[in-house]
């Protein structure tokens, strides 16, 4: 005998909630939207204003300083290929989105991660939320982004920040919790305040781990920025998207290769930052 259990209208509730937020907090969302758009435009304009060769030289110099000559040469070759394929501006647009999304994500993640490390109770709250954020299919974030912020880059940033933030939080928490107990004890024994302990001992010692988290965040941001082409984000993702719609695998792969080059460059560069500084 079948019992007629009414279907729980979970989806309806979520939609109602989102509708409510969209209408009631449109001032907030519009504010965020304007701020984000301005930020993106500023970064984008600055990067696009520079001649291609100048930006390449700048990036190569940065690579050489933080890593070495190999990465510098690699960066020049990779960027030259992107330029040659005519994908320079889409690459700049993607890079802009990644940089902006990463900055926002890190600015939110660091304090949250610190709080999670210092308070066991908040740790218990934060971790399940992070699990939720990371396991929810990334596309799902794109849908509510549109009613909030409309089609375009701002929605892409919103989805990207949510998707890419968890590792930065996790690694920050992990890094601080991994600081050896004896060092905390030493800091306490000399009469450090909480703030002194955090800024003089815990954060400096967890920096390599936090940088590993930021590296992960950047990589996730790049992957999401590409997917965000589906809701109208500019950049390499939209080149891929166009190639799919026009059934032109050659163009698709070219854009894909550009994404790979950008990813490798960002990855190697941020990993180089992680290596402990040599003693003076």
């Amino acid at each position, binding site marked *: 005998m079948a019992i007629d259990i009414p279907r729980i209208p979970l989806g309806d509730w979520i939609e109602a909630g989102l509708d409510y937020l969209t209408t009631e907090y449109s001032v907030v969302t519009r504010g965020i939207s304007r701020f984000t758009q301005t930020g993106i435009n500023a970064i984008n304009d600055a990067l696009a204003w520079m001649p291609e060769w100048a930006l390449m030289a700048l990036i190569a110099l940065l690579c050489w300083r933080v890593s070495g000559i190999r990465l510098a040469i690699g960066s020049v070759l990779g960027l030259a290929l992107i330029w040659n394929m005519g994908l320079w501006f889409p690459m700049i647009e993607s890079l802009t989105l990644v940089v902006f999304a990463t900055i926002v994500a890190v600015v939110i993640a660091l304090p949250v991660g610190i709080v999670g490390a210092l308070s066991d109770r908040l740790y218990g709250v934060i971790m399940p939320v992070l699990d939720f954020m990371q396991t929810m299919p990334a596309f799902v974030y794109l849908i509510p982004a549109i009613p909030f912020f409309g089609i375009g880059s701002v929605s892409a940033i919103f989805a990207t920040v949510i998707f890419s933030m968890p590792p930065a939080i996790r690694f920050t928490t992990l890094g601080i919790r991994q600081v050896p107990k004896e060092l905390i004890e030493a800091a*306490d024994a000399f009469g450090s305040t909480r703030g002194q302990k955090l800024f003089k001992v815990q954060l*400096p010692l967890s920096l390599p781990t936090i940088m590993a988290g930021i590296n992960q965040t950047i990589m996730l941001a790049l992957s999401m920025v590409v997917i965000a082409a589906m809701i109208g984000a500019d950049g390499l993702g939209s080149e891929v998207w166009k190639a799919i719609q026009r059934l032109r695998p050659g163009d698709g792969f070219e854009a894909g290769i550009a994404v790979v080059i950008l990813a490798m460059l960002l990855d190697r560069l941020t990993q180089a930052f992680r290596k402990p500084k040599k003693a003076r």
Partner: protein
Amino acid sequence: MSETQQTKIQVRGLSKVFGNQPKKALELRDKGKSRGEILEQTGNTLGLSNVSFDVQEGELLVIMGLSGSGKSTLIRCLNRLIEPTEGEIIIDDENIPKLSEKELLHCRRRHFSMVFQNFALFPHRTVQQNAEYGLEIRGVDKQERIRRAGDALKQVGLEGWEGALPNQLSGGMQQRVGLARALANDSTVMLMDEAFSALDPLIRKDMQQELLELQHRMKKTTIFITHDLDEALSIGDRIILLKDGEIVQIGTPEDILTNPADDYVARFTEGVDMSRILTARSAMRPVRATAREDDGPRTVLRKLSENSLDSIYVTTRERKLLGLIEADAADRAAKEGIQSIRELIHNDFPRVGPDEPLHNLFAMFNEKSYPIAVVDEDQRLLGVVVKGAVLAELAEAGEH
């Protein structure tokens, strides 16, 4: 010793229960239950039970016990790295367990600096920055900080290493940094938690000597924790023996050795360490220089003058001890052109096995001014025992 000393810290009825039912655990203790029974009934561990003692201004007090005796808990209760469950700890009219968080911070900065077993240096800070840490968090200005940390580093012999990072230093040097970090702070009390236990034996001996010298110079009240009776006896002005969270005996090293309070202390001192302390092996020093049987008189003379000795042991290649040569005999032989030194060797000096009790040795010093040679069953030279104040003390303790 007999001058009137001031009490720096008074510890009264200090107890610590690890677990969630401290009240019940202490009630059970007051009913005379043992540690084991308390653990069984409450699941809580009685770390310290009713510990009372005084620390005198300027003394080096050693708290000694085996692992699990509660000594680490005790030292951490003093500056509340571990919260005591009950009891008073009074330092300069302040009762530490009653202090608010802010007062505690202030108290730690003023009164306590700590040296840790595993050094606990900050790996991202240079030696200089490590030494400055205590001053930095107190807001001492930069010039003053640099000067005082520099002074402390000089005290421990680390001049010239200011810019190095801790992991570039050996264990012994790292602990010197730990010591400098504590000294720079100029706190009134130094807490040393098994400070030398992670060092290898030779460096450890050196550090003990240096601590004694520092202590002699600066007269800083020091509480030193160790599980090693040798260490306790050689550095402590007074020793507190701790067992299962309770004090078994408080006394000078002599008291502990000669009048052990109970079987536990007696077993400790006799069974484990007494024999080691009171034999030739533990008192002997390595021989600075020896001559070979086939050396000429001039070689012998050079070795004597290089090491500023007036007599030297002669050995075979296998370090088997043949005898002793006097400087003036070698000098005469050299002038007369004698090639071999064999005739110059005499055997008119004491020699003993490594397990010879020290008080037997002490009598030998009175006959001759030579040091005592320590040899093994095959007559190989192991070292010498020289007459010295340390030996005299130990021998005295051993006679009772």
